[in-house]
């Protein structure tokens, strides 16, 4: 069965037209997400510019090892998902399910490391910008601003990760029901775009949080 003979909604001229619209729609959504996270990146520029020493002092208290491992995890998950897309384009549904299961596991590992281990360490070290904040003195104000940026940006990214995991799980369920084939796999492509975008956001956040303010 070719793609042109696949069923499609009445407002589209063909199944290919429907697929193109779905992919374009996801790209449009991601363009709005760029601006959503762009405002957070602008906050980083603004706060670091006016509080450079304190901001960098805060960055030096972050868990670089966990952040780096999480970056490798997300880069690998994007690779494995791309393998899954290539497999389903060749009609291999079983390999798609296996790839998505690995991606789900990697994404879940990221969340465990981030919120189960790193956040736990941050709170234990009194780095949440509240009354018990552990960085005192002249750098306290800038360091507090840094950790406000840190907790807000990583929490928002974490929410996006949970959304991504839900979507990858949905792809697995549909793939297990044999709903995808070499001629129909639009949801797999669209979810892959979202997953890679969440990866992109983390690539930028990793540098802003762990590296720029670290120093020798």
């Amino acid at each position, binding site marked *: 069965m070719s793609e042109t003979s696949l069923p499609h909604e009445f407002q589209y001229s063909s199944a290919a037209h429907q697929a193109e619209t779905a*992919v374009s729609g996801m790209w449009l959504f991601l*363009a709005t997400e760029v*601006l959503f996270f762009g405002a957070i990146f602008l906050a980083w*520029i603004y706060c670091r510019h006016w509080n450079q020493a304190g901001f960098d002092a805060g960055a030096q208290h972050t868990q670089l090892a966990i952040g780096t491992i999480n970056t*490798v995890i997300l*880069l690998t998950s994007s690779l494995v998902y791309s393998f899954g897309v290539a497999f389903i384009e060749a009609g291999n549904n079983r390999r798609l399910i296996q790839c998505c299961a690995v991606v789900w596991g990697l994404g879940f590992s990221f969340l465990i490391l981030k919120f189960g281990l790193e956040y736990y360490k941050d709170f234990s070290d009194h780095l949440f910008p509240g009354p018990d904040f552990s960085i005192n003195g002249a750098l306290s104000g800038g360091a507090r601003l840094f950790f406000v940026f840190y907790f807000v940006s990583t929490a928002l990214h974490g929410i996006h990760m949970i959304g991504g995991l839900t979507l990858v799980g949905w792809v697995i369920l549909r793939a297990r029901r044999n709903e995808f084939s070499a001629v129909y796999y639009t949801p797999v492509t669209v979810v892959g775009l979202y997953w890679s975008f969440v990866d992109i956001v983390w690539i930028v956040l990793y540098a802003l949080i762990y*590296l720029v303010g670290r120093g020798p």
Partner: protein
Amino acid sequence: MNERFRWLLGTWVLLLVLLAAEFGAGFLPLKPAVRPLILIAPVIMVAAVGIMFMQVKRGPAVVRLFAVAGLVWLCILLGLGSLDPMTRTDVYVQSTGIK
């Protein structure tokens, strides 16, 4: 098929190399003002993910339009938003002693 897998794997290796370079650059004794140059590596990584994993070159032309539009508006947001902190000059007014 095999060639596509090789390209994807090559992209992943490139990303890891860039990550290692970025990680190393984080420990260089750079002045605070030039430390944001570390962001060059992540920018290349973002481009690599967009081109190879998200396949921005595939699909209809409107996909490229949305991708470019997102980047343009991000540049406007960051450019105009940074203009004030980057160009403002603080002028300290000497106290007159009048209360």
